[in-house]
């Protein structure tokens, strides 16, 4: 089935939002990843193809694209797991403005991160003693379960609510907000809860769990967002929100 004779028909998105798919014929090799395919096209067939990548080894998240309709890391996606009848379709990440070809504008993704107050607010100074955070405490375990996010935007691209609600902060921003809410050293808990509540925040999540399904780091933004829902509910009932 594999071998130098087999050719893949690869449709790649070219242009901006009003662009279209262009077909390329790429020789199939063993152990080929989708990123290999894109690189081959750019080097051998069409140097004008724009795409992002960095580490090539599944650590940085830069190479995220839509492969056969699903948001994935292309360096971690082997062709044999996604190819259908020797055909592949590669498009830029969904739910984000297209800069050109396979490159998306990530600004709104990170702007929403900031709007969700996804930044740590320190409470101690260098004159204070070290913070004591037990790694086995429930709060720290909740943080640890969600902290490994590297901001690749696969969850954002996979999320139905992001597609339906332009203001929705999205799974990554809310996931990060949750890790900070459970961080005992952070001093912005009340403001952050206000920032993540409402129709643009955690309450818009429909628990479809596409984010959890697609996260390449196997995180669960769904679980984090559920945590935020509980926290905001408690705050509402206590009259704090």
């Amino acid at each position, binding site marked *: 089935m594999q071998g130098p004779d087999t050719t893949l028909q690869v449709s790649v998105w070219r242009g901006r939002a009003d662009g279209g798919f262009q077909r390329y014929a790429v020789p199939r090799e063993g152990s080929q990843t989708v990123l290999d395919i894109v690189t081959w096209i750019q080097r051998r067939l069409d140097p004008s193809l724009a795409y992002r990548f960095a580490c090539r080894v599944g650590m940085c998240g830069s190479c995220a694209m839509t492969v056969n309709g699903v948001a994935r890391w292309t360096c971690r996606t082997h062709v044999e797991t996604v190819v259908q009848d020797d055909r592949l379709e590669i498009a830029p990440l969904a739910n984000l403005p297209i800069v050109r070809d396979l490159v998306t504008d990530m600004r709104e993704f990170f702007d929403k991160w900031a709007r969700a107050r996804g930044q740590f607010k320190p409470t101690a100074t260098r004159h204070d003693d070290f913070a004591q955070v037990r790694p086995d405490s429930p709060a720290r375990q909740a943080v640890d379960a969600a902290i490994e996010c590297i901001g690749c935007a696969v969850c954002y691209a996979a999320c139905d609510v992001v597609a339906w609600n332009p203001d929705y902060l999205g799974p990554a921003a809310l996931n990060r907000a949750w890790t900070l809410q459970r961080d005992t050293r952070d001093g912005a808990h009340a403001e952050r809860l206000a920032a993540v509540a409402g129709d643009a925040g955690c309450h818009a999540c429909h*628990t479809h*769990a596409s984010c*959890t399904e697609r996260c390449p780091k196997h995180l669960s933004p*769904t679980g984090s967002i*559920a945590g935020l*829902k509980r926290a905001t509910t408690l705050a509402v009932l206590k009259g704090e929100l």
Partner: protein
Amino acid sequence: MLAIFLPLHFLALSQALIGEGALDAFLAWTQQPLLKASEIALVFLLAAHLTGGLRLLVIEFVGWHSEAQKAMLAAAGGVAAFCALLFALNLV
């Protein structure tokens, strides 16, 4: 769909304000096959909405345990179908 059904449901029951006869007349009208079929579909959708909602309440307030949740979703669908079936059997 429920949203459209409900006001009609309430209006129908309010027929009793006029008298038993009026309510009976309306009930007789609902025996038509098309309405019966819609009723069954409605009950199924309502049951699915209910079980899906319960799933949400568990995930949101009890917590997330991935694999178990997927099983729950399947169970939810099953229960909904079962209820609708019961309803259908009693009608036909």
